[in-house]
């Protein structure tokens, strides 16, 4: 085998290792950043939605839920390529159900679904945190 071949093998190996390290670094940063962005964009709307429900204003609640759904749709493809599809579909399901309940004027159930959405998002963030409780 020529000396040049060894150099090429070494270069390919080094390149592969570097590429793997970069992909892993991205994979460590991206999911959490994605979820934080989603939380930031939906948090204000969901809090305002709760206030609207408590103020007996289901029409405004439905409008805010529609905004939350828009935001979710904006993130959808990125979320699906990063997280388990079932977990993401659960978020959509909670918002869709809350929207239907807002239209129907069922305050109690609407608050339950809205809380479920917020909790699920928080749980996704929690499970992606590299804390000891998730590592062990």
């Amino acid at each position, binding site marked *: 085998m020529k000396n040049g071949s060894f150099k090429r093998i070494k270069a*390919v*190996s080094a390149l*592969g*290792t570097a590429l*793997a*390290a970069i*992909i*892993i670094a991205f*994979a460590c940063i991206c999911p959490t950043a994605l979820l934080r962005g989603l939380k930031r964009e939906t948090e204000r709307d969901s809090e305002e939605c709760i206030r609207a429900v408590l103020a007996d204003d289901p029409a405004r609640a439905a409008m805010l839920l529609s905004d939350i759904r828009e935001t979710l749709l904006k993130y959808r493809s990125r979320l*699906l*390529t*990063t*997280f*388990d*599809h*079932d977990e993401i579909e659960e978020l959509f399901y909670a918002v869709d159900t809350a929207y239907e309940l807002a239209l129907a004027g069922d305050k109690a159930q609407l608050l339950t679904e809205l809380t479920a959405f917020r909790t699920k998002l928080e749980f996704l963030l929690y499970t992606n945190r590299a804390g000891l409780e998730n590592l062990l």
Partner: protein
Amino acid sequence: MPTLFIRTIFIYLTVFAVIRIMGKRQLSDMQPFDLVVTILIADVASEPISDPAVPLSYGVIPILALFLMHKAAALLSLRSERMRRVICGEPLIVISNGVVLEGALRAADFTLDDLTEQLRAKDVFSFSQAKYCILETNGAISVVRSGNAPRKEEDSSPAVTVVSDGKLREKALRSVGMSREKLDLALSAFAFCGIGDCFFVCFESDGTLHVQLKERRGGQPERYFIKADLYEERKL
């Protein structure tokens, strides 16, 4: 279905590229860390292939992480002798100068049958034919044959182990046409011991009894070769 197909191709290409970069060691003699990576990659790759709800990154990221771990282990074992010992272990001499080392076998969790099997794979059909036998870190053995050992093309009919670790194998004893009484008498007359004291007794192809006693603290284990004409002459 097209999704499954494309995902399978993608995972296959990733695993192939990773194994290709790891080198040929993956395909033949594996060190422990090679084996770990190979087993884990197979398991990790299967989930995103079979379940479309699982993103490909759930398979790709662990595979790349394993690849990096493997690279780190290979680099450490290359750079430091101590780390190489930790990662790969050390070769172990299990037969030294024709003596089967009982302690070394126990340390390697090797039974006499395992050793016999491995020796047979190297065309060595009796302990007496091996001068040295080294258990390598990848689980294979290397054998230095003794001077009088027959070559492959010559007569090398297998020896029969009739006593292993102090226990008599009656079926094996019957297969060589010997009685327990005859063996007892041969051992007491020529090796000054009983069956329970023997690490092994092998019946060689020429009728010789190859006896090795169990190890005693601090001393080399005693070995005896009792020729067939000796114990036959005494009408044992």
